[in-house]
């Protein structure tokens, strides 16, 4: 079983029209070797020797099964079986892991048989307290509006960018209560849940089991209760108009390795059905792995996420909720190089929320990539809306934004969109392991000019032994702001495009009573309920490879804000500072 030779494959029949279109758009081949099926005769031979085959993976050219040691020995003798590996692999089998990793790039050469051994672990479910669905508090309502607004949701809606034409696959623990929830009435009525599958029970009903998927979907396509007149309520996420593929890959209360197989099966399924974006609000950590294994190459799903990206899908993954426990760092698949890892922000401060996992990866790559609200109002079973927290909700918020941006620039490849989103981060090119590049902003998400040069807001002032960072006087002022007449007016919320001048895009606020019309040269209005945070100063010290040694975020109360000993800048280390959109570096 060293090849896929002789297998019959017709991409026209295997891939959905959407999947074929995605590949064409991104100039990918109609199919590649990893898309070819595993040779049926090889699979049949394995099935004849073992009790249970749990997964047949095209991407890895592998079969996962349960087998006794004697059966495993027999499998090794079968024709075409290149290797039989205990799955999950032992620590001592690092070479074997590398071998499997190479299979990704050379699927014709070998086929691996994964053996399920034992499972362990548990998972603590989220059990929020219920809330009266008809009594959303003012604070929760404001949070719902802000969670969309902080990623420029009103401007996207005004531009008609709500994920139309995009397919988003959501992998989760279950979507209990989703079909009956009024927040998804529009989604269900328009039949935009195009496919569902439970990869743990091998059936199509995913609306049972856990409700975490329902909560995640709320941050993608949920809506608040409709207002008077039956109009659709305000969106809780940024892709209410997208199509969805819902996959159950995760079990409640247990952390079995079979979940990773289910994830792999689901991603191949999503690829076949034409998913553009995969949202994975899960992170596997210490029940299965050690921190030093979070290098994007160890776990099955991290490798699968990288393959998915190569096939033109954007994989958005929650960074994890371990920032305030012993694990601290990101989990997998957020550690995958091509997975967009999303950290959590505190809506009250706009800064890293305690539980959000920290980067970098074990091999010191930059993670998380971006950040979004980690505390949200979202949908829960029983038609309720509840305030929940977790990076599980940061990821779908950004996935929704990604869908909107991809809708606007359909020609982008998945990795171009990945880079665009990073460059859209409000801190970009500044980075730290708590915030990533910050929350992505629409105004910065232009492929032509991803990072418009901002005016300098501070200066480095070297002294004998210190380098001082001093904020310029003009940047130390807080400008007054004006309120729009209608915060929800699409005209008000419309963002200027790259080709428009601010004057041309000035909101057309209708006069009321004795109000005077807005002057043509008036500055753009504040987009309410856009969160308004004080201007923080971010600074970090990085070595010549870009690995951070130290980073801080400071509230600015005086213009002399940081002094760094110059001895810390030896050996090529770089001081990088970000304030009010301006990033500058200092090195000696």
């Amino acid at each position, binding site marked *: 079983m060293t090849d896929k030779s002789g297998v019959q494959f017709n991409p026209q029949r295997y891939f959905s029209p959407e999947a074929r279109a995605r590949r064409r758009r991104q100039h990918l081949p109609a199919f590649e070797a990893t898309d070819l099926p595993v040779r049926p005769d090889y699979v049949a031979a394995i099935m004849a020797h073992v009790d249970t085959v749990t997964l047949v993976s095209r991407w890895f050219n592998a079969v996962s099964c349960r087998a006794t040691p004697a059966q495993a020995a027999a499998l090794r003798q079968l024709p075409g079986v290149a290797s039989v590996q205990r799955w999950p692999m032992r620590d001592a089998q690092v070479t074997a892991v590398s071998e499997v990793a190479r299979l990704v790039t050379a699927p014709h050469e070998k086929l691996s048989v994964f053996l399920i051994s034992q499972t*362990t672990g548990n998972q603590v479910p989220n059990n929020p307290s219920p809330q009266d669905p008809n009594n959303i508090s003012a604070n929760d309502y404001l949070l719902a509006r802000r969670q969309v607004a902080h990623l420029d949701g009103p401007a996207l809606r005004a531009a008609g960018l709500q994920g139309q034409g995009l397919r988003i696959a959501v992998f989760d623990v279950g979507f209990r209560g989703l079909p009956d929830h009024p927040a998804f009435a529009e989604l269900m009525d328009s039949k935009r849940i195009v496919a569902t599958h439970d990869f743990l029970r091998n059936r199509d009903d995913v609306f049972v089991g856990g409700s975490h998927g329902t909560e995640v979907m709320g941050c993608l396509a949920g809506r608040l209760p409709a207002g008077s007149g039956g109009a659709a309520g305000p969106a809780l996420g940024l892709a209410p108009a997208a199509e969805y593929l819902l996959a159950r890959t995760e079990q409640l209360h247990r952390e079995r390795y079979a979940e990773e197989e289910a994830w792999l099966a689901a991603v191949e399924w999503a690829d076949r059905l034409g998913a553009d974006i995969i949202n994975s609000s899960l992170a596997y950590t*210490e*029940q299965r792995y050690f921190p030093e294994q979070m290098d994007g190459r160890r776990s099955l799903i991290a490798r699968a996420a990288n393959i998915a990206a190569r096939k033109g899908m954007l994989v958005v993954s929650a960074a994890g909720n371990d920032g305030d426990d012993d694990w*601290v760092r990101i989990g997998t698949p957020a550690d995958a190089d091509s997975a967009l890892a999303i950290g959590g922000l505190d809506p009250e401060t706009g800064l890293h929320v305690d539980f959000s996992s*920290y980067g970098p990866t074990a091999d010191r790559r930059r993670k998380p990539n971006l950040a979004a609200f980690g505390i949200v109002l979202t949908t829960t079973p029983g038609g309720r809306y509840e305030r929940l927290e977790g990076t599980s909700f940061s990821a779908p918020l950004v996935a929704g934004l990604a869908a909107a941006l991809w809708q606007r620039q359909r020609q982008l490849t998945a990795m171009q969109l990945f880079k665009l989103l990073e460059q859209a981060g409000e801190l970009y090119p500044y980075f730290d392991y708590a915030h990533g590049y910050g929350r992505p902003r629409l105004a910065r998400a232009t492929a032509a000019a991803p990072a418009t040069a901002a005016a300098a807001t501070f200066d480095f002032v070297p002294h004998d032994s210190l380098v001082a960072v001093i904020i310029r006087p003009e940047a130390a002022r807080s400008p007054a702001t004006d309120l729009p007449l209608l915060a929800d007016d699409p005209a008000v919320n419309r963002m200027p495009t790259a080709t428009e001048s601010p004057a041309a895009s000035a909101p057309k606020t209708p006069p009321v009573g004795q109000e005077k019309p807005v002057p043509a040269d008036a500055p753009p209005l504040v987009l309410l309920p856009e969160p308004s945070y004080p201007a923080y100063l971010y600074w970090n010290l990085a070595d010549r490879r870009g690995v951070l040694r130290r980073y801080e975020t400071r*509230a600015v109360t*005086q213009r002399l804000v*940081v002094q760094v000993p110059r001895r810390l800048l030896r050996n090529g280390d770089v001081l990088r500072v970000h304030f009010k959109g301006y990033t500058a570096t200092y090195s000696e």
Partner: protein
Amino acid sequence: MRTLRYFSKSHWARLRRGGLLLALLAGAPVVAQAQQVLVQANVADDTVKTTFGPNRRWFGHGYVALGLVAGPAEAGARLRDGLTSLEARVGGRLKLRLSQSVALCGDLAYAFLRYDLAQEAGKLVPAPTLHQRESLALHQVVSEVALRLNFGRRGNAVGSYLDLLAGGSWAAATRHRTEDVPAPGIGSVETTESGLPYLRRFGGSAGARLGFDRYALAARYRFSPAFASSYAAWPELPRWVIGVEVGLF
């Protein structure tokens, strides 16, 4: 060979946010001038390979346990039915991992062991006299070693395991407590005797513990007699203690 550099928990714990850290920064190399630090991390210090953790080479944690005295008693030493004869433990455990599936554990614990004696005809221990209630209690220091056999692949977690236990105990204090109603109008009279010569000071036991992460079921069998050698003729108390443990980590 390149040395792997891992992040250590101790340094990650230095992450600080949301508070005034000016005082902490006073001795730091980076001078803060009346600025409020909201998020801070010193990644450069996190370069020590971690050897301490649930599935690292070394791991230590506290635990609490509660077990019921079980098993047959010899005639004259029967215990009252119910949950009143018990052992409560609180202690610490140090684990040395030898491989992914084998580890050694050492425990040091305080254990309170109480036998609630049945007051029935034929009672012999420690005397035939019947009371309203009567108990023997031992305040023990327990030392135990365990061979741990882990099952299944796991990450940095304790996982599922079977411990084979062997241990010894030293009774630091002993008590014999009786409760009687001597006469109408008097609620009760309690007497407590301590320093009991007839209870054995040193004991030995073996057992097994089946655990999953922080939770475990444990059963121990006492090999040594409950009573001192001078009282070898006394009927033996039940030898088993079966209960649950909760690891504190």
